[in-house]
């Protein structure tokens, strides 16, 4: 049986990859993908904890489903925004979209 720490290590690695992607990439879509990775790392954590600690209740699964739904909605909104910005400015590079400042 694979122990809990494997899952946690895996999730931490996945989170770090996602974080790196979100931090380092210029392309907004890639940043979004990084964020998705981080979200999924969190979901793995949730599921793992649920499986190993409280398998008798359904909470962990429900939480995971809600996070999927939120992530999907977020992607939908995010992509729509990127398309709109691209149409305006012909770019989706994150460091060029810096209008929201003083």
């Amino acid at each position, binding site marked *: 049986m694979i122990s809990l720490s494997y899952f946690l290590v895996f999730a931490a690695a996945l989170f770090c990859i996602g974080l790196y992607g*979100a*931090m380092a990439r210029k392309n907004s879509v890639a*940043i979004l993908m990084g964020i998705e990775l981080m979200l999924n790392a969190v979901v793995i954590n949730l599921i793992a904890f649920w499986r190993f600690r409280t398998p008798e209740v359904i909470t962990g699964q429900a939480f995971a489903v809600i996070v999927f739904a939120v992530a999907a909605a977020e992607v939908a909104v995010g992509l729509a925004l990127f398309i709109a910005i691209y149409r305006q400015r012909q770019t989706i590079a994150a*460091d060029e979209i*810096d*209008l*929201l*400042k003083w």
Partner: protein
Amino acid sequence: MESSTLVWLLPAPPLLAFFLIIFLTNRSKGLSHTLGILAVLLSFIGSMVIVVLGLRSGHLAEEPFTSVINWFPTGDTWFQIGVWVDPLTVATLFFVAWTILMIFIYSVGYQNYGQPKGDHDVPGLPPHGATEKDEHGHEHRVPSIEPMYSRFFAFLALFSFGMYVLVVSNNLLTLFVGWEIMGLCSYLLIGFWYAKPSARAAAIKAFLTTRVADVIMLLGLAYLYYLAGSLSYDVIFSEETLHLLTETGTPFLGLSAAVVIGIFLFIGTIGKSAQWPLHVWLPDAMEGPTPVSAMIHAATMVSAGVYLVIRVFPIISAGAVHGEPTVTMNIMAFIGAFTGLFAATIAVTQNDIKRVLAYSTISQLGYMIAAIGIGAYVAAAFHLFTHAFFKALLFLGSGSVIHGVEHGVLHTDEHVDPQDMFNMGGLRKKMPVTFWTFLIGGLALSGFPLLTAGFWSKDEILADAFAQSNWAVFITLAFAALLTAFYTMRQITLTFLGQPRTEASKHAVESKWTMTLPLVGLAVFAIGAGWLGITNDFPIIGGLLPNYMHDFVGETLAEHPEAIRFNWIPLLTSLAVAFGGLFLGWLVYRNVSAGEADPLEKPLGPVYSLLKNKYYFDELYDFIFVRPAYWISRNFTYLWLDRRIIDGFLHGVARVAYSLGGLFRNYIDRPIVNGFGDFVGESVKRLGRGARFIQTGRIQQYMVMALVIAFGTLFYYLFFLAQP
């Protein structure tokens, strides 16, 4: 209904009418006078019922109709007020009710009810007349209705209320309340035509003059209350109280309390009944409309003064032993007799028809005061009783004359004074009813023998003075009676006899029935009222009629006054002065032609102008009282007290407050309150300026920051807070 309950109700209708007219019906003239007359008619009927009950009770003096209620607590007892009807009240009630009713009816005509509105009449001035077209298209000037008609009736009603309260009250305090209500109303009514400066001045003069006396009277009441512990008649006129009052000494010249109180109360009467030296207000009070003059000078206010001294006669005479008059009585005899003669001399030279009557009133009131002064209680009450009728009659008659002549003035457009008797003459045929009634009143005033009321009452006073061998009073009053007859005949001759001296008097017309009816009503009493007091041993007719005045009114006193023996000398004296005065008056004035001066002017010389100017009392008082009062009020009160002290103090306060405000502003409001507000705003601004470099708009920088803060928080939590 208990008779005392009815007495309580007597003053109510006029008061009710006053409020109803003021608040509800003042727009409707007809409704207002209907209300007013209805109210006094109710009081009149009630009064007559009381009079009849009183006469029939037989022992009213011992058992007056009375009832009391508690008014306000004084310590552990109550101050009680109530009503009191004894024979004196019955007599007073009788003439008060009659004259008031007559005056109300008369006012309807006098204030020109039913006439058109004036062309340019304004409230506050007498009506100036209206222009009317008859069927032929001719324009006529006719009298116009009084603009403040309803208000007039409201004031009259309040006045009547005051008089009824005064008459029926059982104690001196509510008497004083009625007394002051009348004082207020006389002020309002004398100044009724308030747009006339002379009316305003007269109103103020009357008010202030009587106020001077009233204050002293109030002191007397206070002193009496202090000593007797009550102001109710049954207490203060009881043996014990009178004894106490005569025994108590006072610091004033060693006089007894009875004398001091008597004098103080009498001073109230001096003011109210216009005795010398406070007589000056009454002639000026003629500025009011004529029914007011009658109301004030005959029926109510001035009678109230005499009523008071008759009422408090037990106090005034307390301590008199065996016909020896008290100090108070001596003072009263002097002032009364002096005023009687003094005012009569002035009346001789006055040309204004109402002013003659005003001085005549002062003179007649002097008679009554003098009568009280010599202890002639019944005679004083009798003369008060008859005088009320014939003087009201004369005033109303003079009003009717003025009204008629005013009509002539409007008709002819002649500019003459409709009140000046030298502008009249020959009105006998134009105004027959007024003439005959005025003649009756005049004869009664001058004491025309046997027939008229004035003869009986005046004769009684003279007889009393004679019986006591009080020669000074007797001779003074006899001489005053001569002058009275003289100026009365002068008035009648100038007004009614001979030929008209102006166009206006040629076109005078008789007044309406509303004015002549009261004249007739009062004329009946100007004759008949005297028959109620004929002494029993008068030759031939004595004893034919019961001597109500003596047997009934005289009962009011605890010790019944003895009837004086009949004597020929006072009778002959009064016959002589009455006929002599009348004859002389007719002789001197029968042939006065238009524009001619008074026939007395030449022979009397400087005396004439002295009398004409009323002994310069107005000028004297102006010099002694009015001008110093003005000077003090200007220089002391206004310039020094008001401007310097009070205003100075106020300005000082303002200045201190101003500089204190400056201090607050400079040292508290601006630095602290404003400073704090500014500091908050400025700090936020500075913080924002310092923090805004973080806001780069670069999303990944934000993420780094979030990461750093998240890790920082995590570390902090794990390493410092979450220690096991």
